[in-house]
């Protein structure tokens, strides 16, 4: 059925093309008042129209993402409502460089999000490490090593329009899903998909480090000495300035 035609026009076409007995009343009433769809489509439509992203940003990519919140780009029209709690979010747009120190926090945020959840890796840093991939001591080379990524959004940083493009592509992905097939796309443990030789290493951080105390310092007695010295110098400077 052509959606651009109004119901009235459709009715007229039907009457014009039907036999002299007139348009079939029962089927017309049905098609005008009942929507036939599958539960999957309805469910997907509801979910893709309310992708709530988590407010997550660690670098300049978030500046571009923040532009979407404003009226110029206005991502509310896509049903994106920024959430500050991972419990209420179902989309994680990783905006910005992720360092080794940030990685545990990112994984924790991802794990706190309710299923089904989606991840967009935004920007070069989150895809490969970007300009930090050459010799940084801390930058994680691609967040897909930490969490599963649904969509890679390249750019450094990507324009707000590019983020919309990513969101639209993600909506298409959501619309193709099926509740029955959900188990097939569930998260797998990414660490075992690439062969590597990891040794079990225990942390040397036993808490002692936090209680670190100074040991090799100037004595208090010597401090007094220095203070007296300084006072004397003060006086001599005063005298000099008075003489001048």
């Amino acid at each position, binding site marked *: 059925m052509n959606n651009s035609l109004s119901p009235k026009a459709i009715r007229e076409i039907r009457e014009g093309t039907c036999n002299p007995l007139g348009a079939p009343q029962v089927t017309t009433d049905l098609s005008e008042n009942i929507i036939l769809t599958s539960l999957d489509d309805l469910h997907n439509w509801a979910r893709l129209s309310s992708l709530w992203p988590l407010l997550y940003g660690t670098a300049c990519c978030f500046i571009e993402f923040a532009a979407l919140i404003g009226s110029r780009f206005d991502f509310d029209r896509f049903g994106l409502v920024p959430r500050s709690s991972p419990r209420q979010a179902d989309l994680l747009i990783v905006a910005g460089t992720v360092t*080794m*120190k940030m990685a545990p926090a990112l994984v924790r945020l991802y794990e706190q999000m309710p299923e089904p959840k989606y991840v967009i890796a935004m920007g070069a840093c989150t895809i490969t490490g970007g300009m930090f991939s050459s*010799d*940084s*001591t801390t930058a*994680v*080379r691609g967040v897909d*090593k930490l969490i599963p990524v649904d969509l890679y959004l390249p750019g450094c940083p990507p324009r707000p329009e590019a983020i919309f493009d990513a969101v639209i592509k993600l909506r298409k992905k959501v619309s193709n899903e099926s509740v029955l097939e959900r188990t097939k796309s569930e998260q797998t443990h990414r660490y075992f998909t690439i062969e590597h030789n990891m040794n079990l290493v225990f942390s040397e951080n036993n808490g002692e480090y936090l209680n670190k105390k100074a*040991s*090799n310092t100037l004595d208090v007695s010597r401090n007094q000495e220095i203070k007296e010295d300084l006072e004397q110098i003060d006086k001599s400077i005063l005298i000099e300035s008075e003489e001048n």
Partner: protein
Amino acid sequence: MDKDNKTDKELVDKRGIISKALSDYNIENESLGEDHIGIENISVEPQNLYEAISKLKDLGFNYLQCQGGYDEGPGKSLVSFYHLITVGDVQEIAKIKEVRVKVFLKRDSDLSLPSLYSLFRGSDWQERETYDMFGINFKDHPCPKRLLMPEDWRGWPLRKDYIQPDFYEMQDAY
């Protein structure tokens, strides 16, 4: 050009004014000459650092503009530097406004320095960063922890002989 302007006495004794002033107060130091914009560089031993800086503060260098570290190279010294400037109307030293004090620490020594937190509060995080990146210990620092790296990180990332561990997360993406 500068050399022509100097007097004979200064040519004989190439030490800067500040270096000499510190020597007058019996603080051992070594002059490193001037850098390209004429700022005097002084080197002191770790045990003399606190005295030297407090004396300089008393002489009018009342602002620690920058504290930092660098590595001279594999096997060479680790250096902690202190850039002091004058802020305010200290008329007595209107001519000299900046000085840089360096402490050279042998790699195999215990790499300990007195913290300047009691003199300049601003040295707090800068010393923590130097500790974090070079492993130089600042005694009497109120919070001698790593600043940037994770607390259980091993190694000192900005040393020239630092070898980056081949963590899975930090291997090149394909």
